[in-house]
């Protein structure tokens, strides 16, 4: 057994008991990256710093990787876009400050779909990331690099961001646990914005208990983020007495039951339902008519509208890619943005511009803000009837990279319905590992809770994990 194979809580215990040194652990992880990175391309930037800011912190000496849309002081941060060039932020994102202050060591910045826009991790200016379970397949996205890095054993945990499933879907496709916290639970300060009212940073790990450890470090009020919670503290500590689902209600969404699931996902649903019932939980149905009918249109209107204003700042004046020989301002803006942004980003900027254009703004953007309220209300009502909602996190197994253009539109529509409404309502969602299918690819599902039920979801996740077992480390294309 190599050190990199340990899960986060095992590393923490091992370091504390001095079974191995932080240096040995870091070296083991770096060696793992050395041997796999050419296959996976999970990282945009590799770092070999071994400095531990807080030797007595809870994460002292534990290596980590951040999605490259999270700002790190004096370390290149790209959002996987050419437009940011070699930009090195002069400041740290709050999440990195918290991890570093807890003793964690940053060894890489992970690949993503440019500006977190995508669900394949192929739309990056730095090339596609490969799924470590089958390198001919995508890892999912947009946090594909962060998910692949944990699945392949680069690090025991990493951070991603989730605007419409960007943590939960790649976690599912890479066979790791991925958690999207309640909107406001984790500070967004220093996260390069895509859809500000939807974006949320969250962790990936190979056990739910590890997610708890990371959440206990990240869940803090941050005065730098006005959407950060203030009311109370949340307890993410591991507590066996709380691992109990007896009498809990777990709902399936009525409107999603007609979807024709892939056999591996349908089997996983049956398996998990059985586990939950065995644990004493009751499986019920809730109806979400507004969510199923209107939430996708609502989501895209809001995400694109916010995205195009968030991307207005990339004009070549202050940082990142620029041109020196433009004749006049307009030409400078046009050339910088034409070259700097990739096609998917341009598509979303144009869509957002159209949706908020004065003559259409009421019909699309303003209407969407109203529908959003209805979506949130509908979820809130549902959570008076149930504790959690169970559904897939993706509608299919990881697609082959060379078959991406053949994805079934109906399947991607269903996939969107599993993930996007959760962001509209600001809910917490856990993507969890259930097992492997016949092709030895991981299959994941999703558990959604009411706002601020984050600790309870993770406890439920541990109960399930105790039945399914934790995922094994993917071989990353090595034989």
């Amino acid at each position, binding site marked *: 057994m190599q050190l990199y194979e340990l899960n986060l809580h095992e590393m923490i215990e091992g370091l504390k008991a001095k079974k191995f040194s932080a240096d040995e652990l870091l070296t083991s992880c770096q060696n793992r990256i050395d041997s796999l990175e050419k296959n996976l391309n999970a990282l945009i930037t590799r770092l070999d710093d071994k400095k531990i800011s807080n030797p007595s912190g809870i994460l002292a000496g534990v290596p980590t990787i951040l999605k490259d*849309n*999270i*700002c790190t002081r004096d370390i290149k*941060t790209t*959002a996987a876009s050419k437009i*940011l060039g070699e*930009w090195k*932020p*002069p*400041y740290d*994102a709050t999440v990195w400050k918290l991890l570093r202050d807890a003793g964690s060591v940053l060894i890489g910045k992970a690949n993503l779909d440019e500006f977190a826009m995508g669900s394949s991790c192929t739309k990056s200016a730095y090339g596609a990331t490969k799924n470590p379970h089958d390198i001919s397949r995508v890892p999912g996205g947009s946090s594909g690099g962060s998910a692949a890095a944990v699945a392949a054993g680069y690090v025991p945990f990493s951070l991603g961001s989730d605007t419409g499933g960007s943590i939960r879907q790649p976690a599912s496709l890479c066979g790791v646990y991925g958690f999207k916290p309640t909107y406001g639970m984790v500070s*967004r*300060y*220093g*996260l*390069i*914005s895509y*859809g*500000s*009212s939807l974006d949320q940073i969250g962790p990936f790990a190979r056990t739910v208990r590890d997610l708890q450890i990371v959440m206990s470090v990240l869940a803090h009020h941050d*005065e*730098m*983020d*006005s*959407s950060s919670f203030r009311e109370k503290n949340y307890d993410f500590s591991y507590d066996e007495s709380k691992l109990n689902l007896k009498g809990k209600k777990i709902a399936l969404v009525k409107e999603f039951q007609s979807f024709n699931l892939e056999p591996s996902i349908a089997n996983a649903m049956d398996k998990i339902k059985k586990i939950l019932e065995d644990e004493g939980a009751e499986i019920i149905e809730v109806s979400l008519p507004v969510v199923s009918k209107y939430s996708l249109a609502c989501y895209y209107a809001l995400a694109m*509208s*916010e995205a195009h*204003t968030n*991307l*207005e*700042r*990339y*004009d070549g*004046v*202050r*940082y990142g890619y620029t041109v020196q020989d433009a004749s*006049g*301002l307009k030409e400078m*803006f046009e050339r910088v943005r034409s070259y700097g942004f990739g096609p998917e980003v341009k598509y979303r900027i144009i869509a957002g*511009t159209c949706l*908020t*254009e*004065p003559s259409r*703004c009421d019909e699309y*953007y303003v209407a969407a*803000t109203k529908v959003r309220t209805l979506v949130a209300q509908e979820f809130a009502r549902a959570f008076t009837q149930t504790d959690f909602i169970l559904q897939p996190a993706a509608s299919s197994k990881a697609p082959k990279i060379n078959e991406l253009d053949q994805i079934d539109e109906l399947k991607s529509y269903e996939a969107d319905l599993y993930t996007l409404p959760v962001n509209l309502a600001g809910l917490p969602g856990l993507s969890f590992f259930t097992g492997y299918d016949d092709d030895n690819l991981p299959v994941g599902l999703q558990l959604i809770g009411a706002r601020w039920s984050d600790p309870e979801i993770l406890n439920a996740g541990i109960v399930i994990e105790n039945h399914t077992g934790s995922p094994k480390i993917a071989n990353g294309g090595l034989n």
Partner: protein
Amino acid sequence: MPELEFTPVIGIEIHIRLKTKTKIFCSCSTNTDVPPNTHVCPVCMGLPGSLPRLNYEVVQQGMLAGMALNCEVQPKSLFFRKSYFYPDLPKGHQISQCDLPIVAGGFIEVHDENGNLKKIRVNHLHLEEDVGSLHHSASDGRLEGAAISYVDYNRSGMPLAEIVSEPDVSSAKEAVEYVTTLRRRVIYSGASDVELEKGMMRFDANVSMKCSDGRWGRKVEVKNMNSFHALEKAIEYEIKRQKKIMLQGGEILQETRHWNDAKGVTTASRVKEFYRKFIVEPDLPPLIISQEWIDKTKAMFPEMPDVRARRYVNEFKLTPEAADMLTDNKALADYFEACVKAGAEPVRASHWVRTEVLRILNEKALKIDSFNITPDSLANLIKRIDAGKISTTQAKEVFDAMTNNNLSLDEAIKSCGITEGGIVGDALSSIIQKVIAENPDVLAEIKSGKDTKGKKLKFLQGLVMKETKGQAKPQEVAEALTKALN
């Protein structure tokens, strides 16, 4: 055919900088007296990943400014993103409250052409951030054609209030009175210093014309006025221009025109207006202001200048002119009231403040805050005049000595060689004897009875007064002198 009459219909938009320690969405200082790009941070530079957070001091000042315009505080307001591309705008959008503002529905009173009071309605005041400032290397200081342009983001994120009037203004004169009165009230409220020379107040005007034949001209937005004078001239010019076009039967184009202060004309903006869109600023929650906070702010809202002037007339029996003059500047009015509170008679105090105090402030280019005679000292000086201890002439000398040499009242009186209460009795007699002895020829003339008109007596009287340095009462001198001669 009757002559056509034209009525100008004018709305005014004003930007003022609110007085706060830090910027509107970050903790950078609002002090502008620093080298370029030194009071900046990731937030006001709009760096990727940074988030705005509302400075509650700005909210407080916005409420106070709104109250000065007789507006109502809105319990819930929102921030929006106002999009356009320009190098001085670091995020590519400006965060502004636009049409869901912090305060709304006020008015400012001005005098119409007949001297009657009329209300100019204030639609609202909203909060927003300022942009950076551009410096171009081109000789004409314009962006187009400049080889190099520099951007200074120190101003980026400075707190601004935009005040939008209803189109109730009918002349350039009313416009100037509107902005003057508004400025005075806002300064009084403490929300802003509105220092014009520092560009803390900028104007745009929407001008259109209504013709007595029923025609309405389209609205023209005139921009780029940075002084009261520019506002007045720009509106006058625009009224004349539009009237001429309408008299010739032409159409007024709906457009944005720029005021060229040097040439005294408005010119059609060559640059097409930026295409603007608004979405709710997702990084800032709605601004909710509690009734408690509104009440607290109301309690700290000071008496406005017009109310104060009326009180001076009623309570202190000042003339309306004197009351207006004193209340024009809040600090000066505060100084005057402190004098009165320290026991000075109000009318005399008003006179001293308006003449002597203002004279010194003007001569030395001082502000009342840094004037070295305290209201208490001035009140004591006035009290001694009233008690007959020193004359008004002496008091002015003492006053000058106090301010020029930084002396206390008693020190100044001593340095001027003044005997309080004047020279009387034996002291006066001995001076008279001395003067008589030194002028035997004059004495002889009086004795001879040639001084029928009393001219020589007056001459001696003058010499005595001079000898006492004005510290004797003229009547007493006359009596004592006559007595000595007999």
